[in-house]
């Protein structure tokens, strides 16, 4: 196998329990986002746009949809002779075998895969974040700093620091302290879950961690603290731009709504950094004379007769006449009948909302969630 300077390991095995019905049968990275994408499209596109052509995707929880979606990586130009995409589920070894017991263990168990490419650096990312990032710039930073590990960080609001892994740095961006979800933070630099390691170093720590029975085998909880204790060179790579963890219904809804903000820094239409996804082969959307679409994003294959305001419509969505959709995310191939009202909701793929139904309300601030392939009449799930 040809040697690769840097390969990516993408953690995609998470259940995403806080996404409820949306992840009942699919892994979190396969959840739909932004009218045409699945969450994992962002990290896969970042890899290919950054010139990283070897990506191992670590799967565990309900991988069927994700496996089929990724295929041989064609949509992201990762169908390569050398490298390309490899799906890496847990597997049985001569002496037993185990599920991935943590993020670090997932990498540890696939050491043979990594060694095949004999990389100098390894990029560890996860498939549950929405952002556009040039990993090549981060790799350059890592080399310039002669770092053993670099962690991408973003400044978050102080009141949100308790939700993230928080880093304190010195004036050269060298990490002095790392605290997972601190009650009282001394810094507002949050880890984005994007790591570059010098492989030699990481290998050593993974081997040590594997033998530690007390370890939870997690990068944030075990590997990074152990590296800090040893005083090796850990650097924080400051990132500016849009980054969002879409681990909850609220944050998923918010991230979709962020796309409707003209000031949004994600810039989906920037042609220099396209986000690729599997093509759904749908025709151009049809907007009927009776339709009124404002401040929304609408994908191909939609046919709209009603009013859509401040919403995100995925491909193949039908909106009947007299219907009003506001502040909502409607996932693929959902059929919305006539005179339906939908406020502040996330409607899962393939659902059918019968004529006259009311979903959500304009008063309550709560997000109404309808799962996939549900059938709704008059706003009550028909079960």
């Amino acid at each position, binding site marked *: 196998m040809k040697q690769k300077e840097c390969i990516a390991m993408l953690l995609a095995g998470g259940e995403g329990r806080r996404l409820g019905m949306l992840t009942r049968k699919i892994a979190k990275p396969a959840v739909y986002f*932004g*009218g*045409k994408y699945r969450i994992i499209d962002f990290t896969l596109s970042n890899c290919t746009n950054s010139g990283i052509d070897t990506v191992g995707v670590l799967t565990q929880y309900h991988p069927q949809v994700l496996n089929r979606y990724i295929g041989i990586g*064609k949509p992201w130009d990762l169908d390569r002779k050398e490298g390309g995409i490899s799906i890496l589920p847990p597997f049985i070894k001569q002496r037993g075998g185990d599920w991935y017991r943590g993020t670090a263990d997932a990498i540890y168990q696939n050491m043979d895969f990594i060694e095949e490419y004999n990389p100098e650096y390894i990029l560890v990312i996860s498939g549950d974040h929405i952002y556009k990032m040039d990993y090549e710039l981060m790799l350059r930073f890592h080399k310039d700093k002669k770092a053993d590990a670099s962690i991408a960080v973003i400044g978050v609001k102080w009141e949100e620091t308790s939700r993230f892994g928080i880093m304190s740095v010195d004036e050269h961006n060298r990490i002095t302290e790392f605290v997972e979800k601190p009650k009282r933070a001394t810094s507002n630099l949050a880890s984005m879950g994007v790591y570059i390691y010098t492989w030699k170093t990481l290998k050593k720590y993974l081997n040590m961690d594997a033998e530690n029975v007390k370890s939870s085998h997690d990068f944030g909880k075990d590997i990074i603290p152990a590296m800090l204790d040893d005083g090796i060179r850990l650097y924080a790579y400051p990132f500016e731009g849009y980054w969002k963890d879409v681990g909850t219904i609220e944050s998923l809804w918010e991230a979709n709504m962020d796309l409707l903000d*003209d000031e949004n820094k994600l810039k*989906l*239409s920037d042609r220099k950094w*396209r*986000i*690729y*996804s599997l*093509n759904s*082969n*749908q*025709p*151009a*959307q*049809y*907007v*009927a*004379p*009776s*339709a*009124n*679409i*404002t*401040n*929304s*994003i*609408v*994908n*191909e294959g939609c*046919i709209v007769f009603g009013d*859509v305001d401040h919403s*995100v*419509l995925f491909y193949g969505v039908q909106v009947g006449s007299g219907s009003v959709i506001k502040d909502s995310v409607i996932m693929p191939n959902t059929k919305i009948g006539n005179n339906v009202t939908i406020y502040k909701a996330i409607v899962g793929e393939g659902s059918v909302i019968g004529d006259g139904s009311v979903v959500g309300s304009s008063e309550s601030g709560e997000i109404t969630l309808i799962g996939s392939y549900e059938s709704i009449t008059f706003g009550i799930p028909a079960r």
Partner: protein
Amino acid sequence: MKNVMGIINTVNEPDHLEELTYHRCIASVPFGGRYRLIDFILSSMVNSGITNVAVFAHTKYRSLMDHLGSGKEWDLDRKRSGLFILPPVNEGLEPVKGDLHALYGHRDYLYRSSEEFVLLTRSHMVCNIDFRDLRNYHEMTGADISVLYKETDDPDSISSRIVTNTKGRVTSIREQSGLLQGNKVSMEIFFMKKSLLLDLIETALAEGHDHFVRDAILKNIDHLNIHGYRYQGYLGVVNTLQSYYKHSMNLLNPNVWKELFFQPGLIYTKIKDEPPTRYKSESRTSNSLVANGCIIEGTVENSILFRGVRVHPGAVVKNSIILQNGMIRENVNLEHAILDKDVVINAGRTLMGHELAPFIAVKKKVI
């Protein structure tokens, strides 16, 4: 349909698309917001289970080759068979006279293909067909050749008509501007044994002829058992500006939209990875077909926007077709216009065409 190979013959296709075909052949004329004309026949073939398709290219085929690539969007990037783009065969400096020469020039491809039957088609028929029905009909009638036709009155395009007797046998075909009455428009889609096709080509050439339908078929119409098979789906014969405009506007009928783009199969095309279309708060869009990657801030009515079109605030676009990456700046007034790819209309301009004579802007023009 494993035993059937497809041919899309673009040699000498009737072309009155004026500015739209200055720089491209008719097969690669953009249509329906995100497609090229050839996508409809090609996708129909693929959806019918044909896995060996040859496109006979003729002139101005750079954009056609770019569009088709390796055929992967149609699932035709195969180890065996797949997509073949066959360029014109010029011996010496003599230009190719008719499609018979092209078919003959690439006869090795025909001989080498293992399929017993061949489906010979043109690129400018906008339709969505399951060719398995045609094959079944062909087997049932025991015809030598089956030809698809559509009963329609379409005075805006150049098409040939067929005449059938009571048993469905074709007794006459009039190419293009014949005086022959009748409403059976030939879709120029022929199904026959490959051995018959080769025989017809070689015989007609030996007799000094040039054109497949006019010479190889018509001159043998008494000896050949040719049957017409009626196609009942939507058909657009697109080879004049009038028919281009008319059939584009027909897509604004939701029934046509549902039928042509979904039944019996999906239409495939080269993808552009554009984000979904963004409608801003001032946008007013009605009765329009909009592809991905557009940003709409103005008013769009009865129009077709291809991928990546921008309509700035205050602009009004009516009854128009804006091809890929069109830029309509502030307060532009556009009616009955066809703008080719990458056209920019500067702020405040008013451009009015007529339904029967739409205003046309050539590729990359800045107005």
